[in-house]
């Protein structure tokens, strides 16, 4: 017990150290670049952030942006896993879906933003774009995970006539967990990035992206960085929550979790 407390203490000390380290790097960059307009001083940004957090509109924007990212991610994850499983079970389906995925992955947003904007409300466009970005990542990793499932275990299940859905639940799903969680970690970051970028494009009323955009056009770099920092912190927060969740759900479930 005491052991784990000291460990936790050391860990949080560690976090503070890491935080200070990166702030120092930032301060260093500020001193080297010497252009407030490109890289503002950390202190200025924190002061601005302090001003922002007391505003109601700040929290409203953050809340709406979080909602959009989560909606986009959940869509991506659900569809990515389902379609990933379907398309790796049958080679024909895979061959059919693969070019679609390549298209989704590589088509520049520019090319279809207008349809998206006309079909969805401007508040939902970021969800859609976030989905288009993250869905193929999840899909690719799920397919890779399934391809690397241990065939020996599948053979075992076959000999014992284990039902399809049990095989899915007990062999496929646990096998794709590491691939899946790598994809999710990637998407948690990407999701924020593209949602915010899409908010810049579609200008919903309450959105981090909208604030970011006006900060940029008005060359208000401390505000720009303050909002950027908000995005980064939210993304780190999300990642930590996700890591906690995965750890909990695979606790004692996989040899790797412990090591």
């Amino acid at each position, binding site marked *: 017990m005491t052991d784990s407390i000291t460990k936790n203490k050391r860990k949080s000390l560690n976090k503070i150290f890491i935080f200070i380290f990166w702030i120092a790097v930032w301060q260093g960059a500020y001193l080297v670049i010497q252009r407030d307009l490109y890289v503002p001083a950390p202190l200025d940004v924190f002061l601005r952030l302090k001003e922002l957090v007391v505003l109601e509109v700040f929290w409203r924007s953050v809340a709406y942006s979080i909602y959009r990212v989560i909606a986009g991610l959940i869509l991506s994850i659900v569809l990515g896993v389902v379609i990933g499983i379907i398309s790796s079970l049958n080679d024909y389906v895979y061959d059919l879906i693969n070019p679609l995925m390549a298209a989704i992955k590589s088509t520049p947003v520019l090319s279809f933003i207008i349809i998206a904007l006309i079909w969805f409300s401007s508040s939902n466009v970021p969800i859609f774009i976030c989905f288009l970005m993250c869905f193929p990542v999840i899909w690719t990793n799920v397919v890779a995970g399934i391809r690397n499932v241990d065939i020996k275990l599948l053979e075992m299940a076959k*000999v014992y*006539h284990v039902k399809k859905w049990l095989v899915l639940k*007990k062999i496929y799903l*646990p096998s794709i967990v590491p691939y899946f969680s790598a994809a999710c970690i990637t998407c948690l970051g990407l999701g924020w990035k593209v949602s915010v970028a899409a908010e810049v494009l579609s200008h919903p009323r309450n959105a981090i992206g909208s604030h970011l955009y006006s900060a940029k056009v008005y060359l208000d770099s401390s505000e720009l960085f303050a909002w950027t920092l908000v995005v980064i912190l939210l993304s780190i927060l999300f990642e930590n929550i996700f890591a906690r969740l995965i750890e909990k759900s695979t606790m*004692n479930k996989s*040899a790797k979790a412990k090591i």
Partner: protein
Amino acid sequence: MKNLHKNYGELEVIKNFNMMISPNKIHCIFGPSGCGKTTFINIVASLIPADEGNIEGMQEKTVSYIFQEDRLLPWATVEENILFVLESRYDEKEAQQLADKYLSLVDLTNFKNAYPRELSGGMKQRTAIARAFAYEGDVLVMDEPFKGLHLELKKDLMEYIINYGYRENRFFLFITHDVDEALYIADHIHIFQGPPLSLKQEIIVDIPHEERRSQKEKLRQYKEILLQRSKE
């Protein structure tokens, strides 16, 4: 079983192989490493398809298979591993009863909540044995099932097969490299050679199991033959 044929790339593992396996018996397969034993019983258990030929009379039989490797789900506990194969065949209560029964048979009741990585080699093997026994298939296919087990447990399990499993109108097919094991339990001993796989000799051990302990001399004769034939 007729005209079996199986290639791995250029290697002809099984070529024109014919064999009869009589039901309600314990068959033991004996043969050097790499001769094709596992391939053969994989085909019997229809785990892999034969390139040619077919197995008769196996279609509707359920199979319990103890693999050469343990093939446990690493993310499931000992108990879950056993329930995994039972759930599709038995209802929940039955499955739980079977699991409990066979866990205590292999002496793992205390470890039923342990994960494979927390087990010793022999304990993993015991889990695999419990899984196969608990499934109670019509055919019990076993690939070196008792490796890594100490003598006592091995004997207990063999007794169990002879006393209970055997009576339930099942047939057994098992691979071993241990002469004593084979003579202790088998009705038929098939000595294989290969590849390509062929039957060198079939020995029928016609001593009832109850008498094997007492008829030591006769057993010794079988052993001599067995050692002799597999040496050649």
